[in-house]
């Protein structure tokens, strides 16, 4: 059912964990639905220096979290914001139809974390 790539990222997820004093945090999903992703970002000079995640969810949820963090690391905020769910899924060699919502969640997590960063900036509590 899952591609090799999905299984590989699920088996050895990259960037698992929290970032201490993150610049942005995004939490999406709902335990009731069986998927929660929390994404932590470290951002410097508009560039995502580090990204980590914690996920409660199925194989696809964990694999898309892992891939999403990989895709945005080293990217500018603008580049990261343009990472679509399709891009995440494609990078994983595709997802089964009924698991595509996990890639949507991953896209939403990136956006939520960046928005959080941008909001902190606007409220003056960013670290510049």
């Amino acid at each position, binding site marked *: 059912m*899952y591609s090799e790539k999905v*299984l590989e990222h*699920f*088996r050895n*997820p990259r960037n*698992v*964990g929290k970032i201490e004093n993150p610049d942005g945090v995004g*939490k999406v999903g709902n*335990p*009731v*639905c*069986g*998927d*929660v992703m*929390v994404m932590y970002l470290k951002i410097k000079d508009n560039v995502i220096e580090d990204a980590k995640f*914690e*996920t*409660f*969810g*199925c*194989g696809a*949820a*964990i694999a898309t979290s892992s891939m999403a963090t990989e895709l945005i690391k080293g990217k500018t905020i603008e580049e990261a914001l343009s990472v679509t769910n399709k891009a995440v899924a494609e990078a994983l060699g595709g997802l089964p139809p*009924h698991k595509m*919502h996990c890639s949507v969640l991953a896209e939403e997590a990136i956006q939520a974390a960046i928005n959080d960063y941008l909001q902190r900036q606007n409220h003056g509590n960013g670290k510049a």
Partner: protein
Amino acid sequence: MIYLDYNATSPCHPKVIETMLPFFGEKFGNPSSLHTMGQEAKKAIEESRAAIARCISAREEEIIFTSGGTEANNLAIRGVVKAYQKKGNHLITSQIEHHAVLNVFKALEKEGFTVTYLPVNQEGLVDPGDFQKAITPQTIFASIMHANNETGVIQPIEELASIAKEHGIIFHTDAVQTAGKLPIDLGKLPVDLLSASAHKFYGPKGTGFLYVRKGVRLIPQLLGGAHERGRRGGTENVPLIVGMGKALEICTQEQEEENQRIQALRDFLESGILAEVPEVIIVGRRSPRLSNTSLVLVRYVEGESMLLNLDFAGICVSSGSACTSGSLEPSHVLLACGYPHEIAHGSVRFSLGKWNTMEEMKEVVRVFSSIVEKLRHISPFGKEVIRNV
């Protein structure tokens, strides 16, 4: 490979394969054919019918061969309801039935029938009092499963069927998970219809049977030739039918011994998991349960991710029932038991069988606890738990 998904399906017993084999090749006649080849095939399926009837204390003419448990359930429910619809339009079932039962009732609702879906308690049991209360003068038919495929919880079928009988209600039970595993004596058990599926008891996939008590009317659902006394059309799948008879015979003979052996393994597994993995729940543990089934709820992690990690380690299990594997909803059975969604999402079903060993159980406990630890590490929830380990 450690296979712990026997409630999903089992391999054919070697003796079953051996018994079936000649009927694919040399003894390939069509039981409807009058010539020697046909009559030889006819004899073989009738012998299987007799063996099955013996195993469950039924009469041969009360057994209808079907293509499996799903067809047996569909035939039982639709067949009886359509035959008795002039007497009333109210039907009773439970919330924890297999989809091969639930979806038939849902279709009948659309056709104008009223259906009561009985709840279960947290232990997964239907309350006969609820059943009694649900009965109306319009009630014509009820279907309550013998044991649940996810929890293994055994329902008080004898009591439920007796209540149905008192009220003149035709009573069906889906015994797909119990045929071969529990004694079934239709001389005593007052059910009117009972479904079974061979691949759950070391027979082949694609065959099953419906027991229909003499005198109970049934509108055939698969129309064709006059097979199965006009109650189910279609050329009989001779090898599978022969295999099913053999399988049920073997299971019936070995039942007591096997149940004891398997229960010891299952109990060891459960104790191990409870000892090694914090914050787990074993569903229905205080109810009568199939001796081979253990449904474990693990907080803070999701079922599929446990299943896949177990699979990486060569351990085959299900999360909820195999049939809903394409779905995003947590098990309807766990929801019916009253577990909240976030907990119901974290289920792993271990279902044991003939070829499991104590060594395997030890391995499973070890692997399972490390998988849960790993996944809880990935999870945003329940960190305290992990840290306490």
